[in-house]
């Protein structure tokens, strides 16, 4: 009997999609999981244990090896630069990171201010194009920042663009594409290689 595999899953919408993918890939999982307040779900038939974490925390669990593999958004991986292996693009929860601001505005010439939940991504992007900026880290409702004059631009996730539109913002620069990735802890990747490779190849077949 192979050892148990711990999978860190992001709570919420991505969980549903990823869970469906695992079922499609032929894993014997209960059709309905109660997503109440449980943080851990044991699946003895598959010798799998799911832990449910905040999307931003999935790479943390995987990096430290308390989860062998996990499903994390590329945005989180880019922001945190954690030491994990990126094995497979699941092509779910697709969106992109972009800069946005009020229509027809120029960035302030001296030190444009950028509000974002992703300070590292924003900093790296503007560094890369040689623009000196001041990053203002916010934890949510980033769209507010240009509207009330806190920042010239925001850097955030855009999926349909509806939130931007509703707040009167337009997209300026496309920074990176984002989708959910299967990640693995470096040690688990070696010590449980067969099991992890099997999951990768089974999931690969159901990636759309």
């Amino acid at each position, binding site marked *: 009997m192979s050892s148990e595999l711990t999978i860190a899953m992001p709570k919420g919408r991505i969980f549903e999609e990823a869970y469906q993918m695992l079922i499609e890939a032929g894993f014997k999982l209960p059709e309905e999981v109660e997503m109440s307040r449980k943080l851990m779900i044991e699946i003895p038939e598959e010798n799998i244990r799911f832990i449910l974490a905040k999307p931003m925390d999935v790479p943390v669990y995987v990096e430290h090896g308390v989860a062998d593999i996990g499903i994390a958004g590329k945005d989180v991986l880019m922001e945190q630069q954690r030491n994990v292996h*990126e094995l497979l*693009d699941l092509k779910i929860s697709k969106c992109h990171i972009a800069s946005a601001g009020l229509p027809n505005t120029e960035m302030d010439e001296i030190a444009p201010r950028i509000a974002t939940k992703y300070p590292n991504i924003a900093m790296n992007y503007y560094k890369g194009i040689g623009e000196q900026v001041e990053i203002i880290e916010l934890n949510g409702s980033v769209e507010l920042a240009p509207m009330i004059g806190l920042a010239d631009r925001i850097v955030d996730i855009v999926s349909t663009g509806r939130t931007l539109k509703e707040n009167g913002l337009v997209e300026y620069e496309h920074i990176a594409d984002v989708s959910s990735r299967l990640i693995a802890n*470096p*040690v688990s*990747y*070696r010590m449980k290689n067969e099991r992890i*490779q099997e999951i990768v190849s089974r999931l690969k077949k159901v990636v759309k």
Partner: protein
Amino acid sequence: MSAIKKFEKPIGMRDTFPGIYEKIERAKRIGREVFRSRGFDFIETPTLEYYDTVGKASAISDASLFKLVDSQGNTLVLRPDMTTPITRVATSKLLKEKIPLRLAYAANVFRAQQMEGGRPAEFGQMGIEIIGDKTVFADAEVLITAIELMKEFGIESFKLTIGHAGVLHDILNDYTDHEEQREILRTLLVERNYVGFEEAVHEFGLPATKANALLEFISEATNLASIEDMEKYVRKNDGIEYMKQLSKLINAYGLSQYVSFDFTLSSHMNYYTGMLFEIFASGSGFPLGNGGRYDGLLHLFGSDVGATGFSIRIDRLLEVLPKEELKEETVCVLFDDEDFIKALELASTLRRQGARVTVQSKRGLINKEAFTKLFSRVVDLSQEETQ
């Protein structure tokens, strides 16, 4: 910036408390015995080195170096690794006396941390180097030493993943259009970002034959069935042949269950030129150590005799070491003022029997009960009996 509190330490610096200290010492002792029994000689190099020599050659990123300036205005670094200083000593002096050299070390190295707290900026490393032997047998000896060391530590579940920097370099070189693409792919492999690798291959707009070969290589190499499968990706076979020989030697000695081969393995230490490997053990989320052949580093120091070696991180080793109760008797001898000499005599008798004995004046104790609780045996001379 808030003021530094009195008890604070610089970022990444740690105190080693008595319990951990003993574990580290025990680990070092085992390492020392294993290495010495295999003919390796221990050496020590200075904590400070010149930035222009060791600092630049070390392959540790510039941002991770602790730098300072000496009174002559030269930039110095706290040594970020041990391999580079040892290469410096070997090429400047020791190789003239003995070749091949077998050297060992156990020392602390320093790497500045930019990330959140919790990552040590100073940590112990122990390892070996074989300098001046280019044969596959030197590499086999390095691998076998690493395996024997793991066994000697009592670690049951561990694995060495072996790759070859030269083979990977050739493959990436042959199937890309220029050096820049090769480096991008190599960096992605160092990060083990297979998704990024595939994306990059698509983005390069390479001719279909090249792109397909790279994608096939990645998928086959990560599910490697046998080393021969890699032959079709290379023009020259010598790297693959070398790995076959190495594998044969490890198998012949009956250690094959501890190794696996992965030709996508790549290291941020860009001085590796031949075989390279990483050591993993269940229990730690991070690799325990790594090693490989670094003829390239020898070139930087003007020598072409070749070298190979490995090191493990002692802090990570502690996480995977089997828990072991420290079986030692600790005795506390309590005395009143007039019994001091009696206490010393009793203590030295007990020490000869192998106990660790603390001699403590009763008058010097604030809380007798709390203090004596920490010992396995307490002798109170005024009561003349053992509790």
